[in-house]
């Protein structure tokens, strides 16, 4: 399972985009990632090779 980034790693990612969060903000981000990263790993396992992305707006021919 992918490890949850540290606060320092998260800060580097966020500040590289010109945003300056507090440690409390980043702790909240980590809390989300603790739940989401395992779910996203499972998601990757669902996608057969060569499956193309869905269209952004799901055109009617997809429906």
């Amino acid at each position, binding site marked *: 399972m992918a490890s949850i*980034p540290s606060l320092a790693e*998260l800060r580097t*990612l*966020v500040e590289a*985009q*010109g*945003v*300056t*969060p507090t440690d*409390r*903000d*980043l702790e*909240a*981000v980590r*809390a*989300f*990632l603790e*739940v*989401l990263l395992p*779910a*996203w790993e*499972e*998601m*990757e396992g*669902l*996608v*057969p090779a060569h*499956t*193309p*992305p*869905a269209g*952004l*707006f*799901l*055109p*009617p021919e*997809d*429906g």
Partner: protein
Amino acid sequence: MTVAGLARRLQARELSPREAVERYLKRIEALDGQLNAYITVRAEEALAEAAALEGASERGPLWGVPIAVKDVIDVAGTPTTAASRVLADNVPAQDSFVVARLRAAGAILLGKLNLHEFAYGALTTSPHFGPVRNPWSLERVCGGSSGGNGAAAAADLAAGTLGTDTAGSIRIPACYCGATGLRPSTGRVSNGGVVPVAWSFDTVGPIARTAEDCALLLAAIAGRDPGDPSTVDAPVPDYPGRLDGGVRGLRIGVVESLVGGADPRIGAAVESALEELRSLGATLTPIAPAILPHAGAIQQAMQFQEAAEAHREWLHTRLTDYGDDVRARLLVGLVLPSTLYVTGQRARRVAFEELRRTFEQVDLVAAPTMPVLPPRIGEETVEVDGREVPYRLALVPYNSPWSLVGSPAASVPCGLVEGLPVGLALVGPRLGEETVLRAAHAFQQATDWHERRPSSAARRHSASLR
């Protein structure tokens, strides 16, 4: 009063548009101090619009009907705050597409409704504008993000409302407030002039008292908008005219894992509602799409990043002006790899294919709208299956699957547990609003759950205003 009932009285001249507006302004004055459903009441403007309508020669289907919209939907000259300090000074110059369509149908814009900040959460406890209180139990939330819509519909503070839904934001407050809500198919209604959460999931739709009201409102706003490339160029059915077809022969797939995963009292109410539909002629079939447990993760793989992109400029300049929970969600979107978005879109195709096959077997899918009763204001965990889980995680499996694939989904009142409303979710194939509304209407013709009114202080005020 329902949209349909009020429209009939207005058309029959039993009531004037001005009298209709005055009725709701009185109710808002009496009740909204407790409920906090409105951010802006357009009292003077609504009265002026009523006066203008009284002299008009043409009457649309919503002629003189006072409608309120969630405060992410632009009304020219009225602030759109999104319940956030970030947009406190934002006054749009133009109507959103849907508001222009409401006006064309003759509606009067009564005001702007409170919501979870930036429509990015499901509690409607904005740190800037305060919580919306549930008319059924004032210490509880209305759900969200269109919480003001739910409260306004339940307490009769507008004839009908328009909200938005990205991952449940129409269905959840409709469920928790005993109202009827419809998330239309993605692309069925324009998002032009609406503050976005995540473009590929956002949808404007009605929250009102009945399926008939939702049909009237959807008929007014649905259709292609040349200014919004997400809208589809597909014929718009006559939703109100096709409500009466009944459910005989309709095949309804029941997601038993979602029924079984809900509070048993909610599950029992939903099962009773399904039996009612069976007695009306529908057939019930258990279904278990394998993608459902993963739908929330798939949607969030894209939603976090779309939302962060929509807010990028404000994240640079107004970071501390966001409430804590919304700021955290937006920052999550900044730390995710771009490959995750593409993987999410690939998984979305898998979901789409599976649910397309599902809708070859059934005409509608049914489940509880929400598995738990509304939390008390300030609570952020709920009990699911004997475990305490964050509220935001409890709602995802019940709402995200249908947002992910762009399906229309309604929440219809189907019972009371501890005196609080419970909702039945009815989901159709993409662009299948007609079938969803027809089934919801048939259910409401046979039951009276949608006619039950709150027993809180709001109702006592209500009685004095009748």
